[in-house]
């Protein structure tokens, strides 16, 4: 207590240096190496994460562009379809109109020819009937000569009508 033992001092110095060397070689050295390795690992993982984040961003942009492209294409297709359908509708309406006009014309022609036929038939019929009527009246009142004159006159009148 009251005396300073320098031998202890020397021993303490030697002991401390030996301990420092031992710890450095067998304990701290390996531990520092492991900590350094972990630091590198974390750095690596961080840089990997950064790259994958960038890649994800790039692919997202790409997808956005692709989506925009697809949307534009879809609009174009819809527009095309719309114009095509309008054209087709016009065509259908046009052809229907043409058909209708054709049918009407046919019908008119039919009507005309039927009318002509009816007129011709009627003319023949009326001629016959009037002859019959006249002959019945004249049989009783006039001779054959005046009868013929009368018939002709009547016929002319009918024909002029």
């Amino acid at each position, binding site marked *: *207590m009251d005396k*300073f*033992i*320098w*031998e*202890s*001092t*020397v*021993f*303490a*110095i030697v*002991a*401390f*240096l*030996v*301990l*420092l060397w*031992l*710890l*450095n070689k*067998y*304990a*701290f050295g*390996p*531990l*520092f190496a*492991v*900590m350094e*390795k*972990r630091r590198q*690992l974390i750095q690596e993982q961080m840089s990997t994460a950064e790259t994958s984040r960038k890649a994800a961003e790039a692919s997202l942009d790409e997808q956005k562009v692709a989506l925009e492209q697809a949307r534009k294409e879809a609009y174009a297709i819809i527009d095309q379809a719309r114009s095509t359908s309008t054209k087709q509708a016009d065509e259908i309406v046009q052809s229907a109109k043409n058909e209708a006009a054709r049918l009407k014309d046919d019908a008119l022609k039919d009507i005309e020819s039927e009318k002509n036929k009816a007129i011709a038939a009627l003319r023949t019929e009326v001629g016959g009937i009037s002859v019959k009527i006249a002959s019945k009246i004249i049989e009783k009142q006039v001779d054959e000569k005046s009868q013929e004159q009368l018939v002709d006159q009547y016929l002319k009148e009918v024909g002029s009508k």
Partner: protein
Amino acid sequence: MHEFPVWDVGGFRIDFSTWGTIIVTMIITFALARLAVRNLSVENPSKMQNFMEWIIEFVHNTVASTMPLEKVKRYLSLGLTLILFIFISNLLGLPFGVVFEYSEPNAFLGITNELLEKYHGHVHIAFWKSPTADLSVTAGLAIVVIFLVHYLGLKENRKHYLKHYFEPFPIFFPLNLIKEISKPLTLALRLYANIFAGEVLIATILMLGLWGLPFLAAWQAFSIFVGGIQAFLFTILTMVYISQATIHHHDEEEAH
């Protein structure tokens, strides 16, 4: 009070209590460190490895608070060894003591007739203590540190290291010299006095017998705290001295 067993081998004195406890401290420190690095793993560290990495982190931060970050790595091992060795040394004397009573002269234990007379025929020899409760040991640690400080100062920062003795004026040389001499003295005495006082108080409380138990518990708990503080102080002061000797601060000089 107790005497310590000192074997005189032809003028070379071996203090068994000091040598023994230093060796025990070394074994504990080394065993602890080896246990921590038993199964080293980068991704899945064991609990002991985590604990040791926490200590390393703590010392790293401590050292980094005194010097630029890129210089820390060189002194990390020194700081770690200092803090572990001193802390374990400080705690070593706390849990128990080994004291034998001798009434015969014993050359091997350094018990002389004069010593026996001084204690009236019965001398108590203590074999167990904190090595840091011995001024010879703390002086050894301080010598290592101060040697390192001046060596590094001369080697890495020679011009400014030598110049700082004559600053701010050459007349200040004696003051600066005293400052440099007081560094190892305070380093050694502070540690020694704190731990030695703790042990003295423990010995005193033990005289109280059973009534001293609560005091003993309280003081031992406080001694653990003091041991930690002193280990930390010794380490950080070492780093501050190294930093002062080796690093030249431009802005600091302009500020003076």
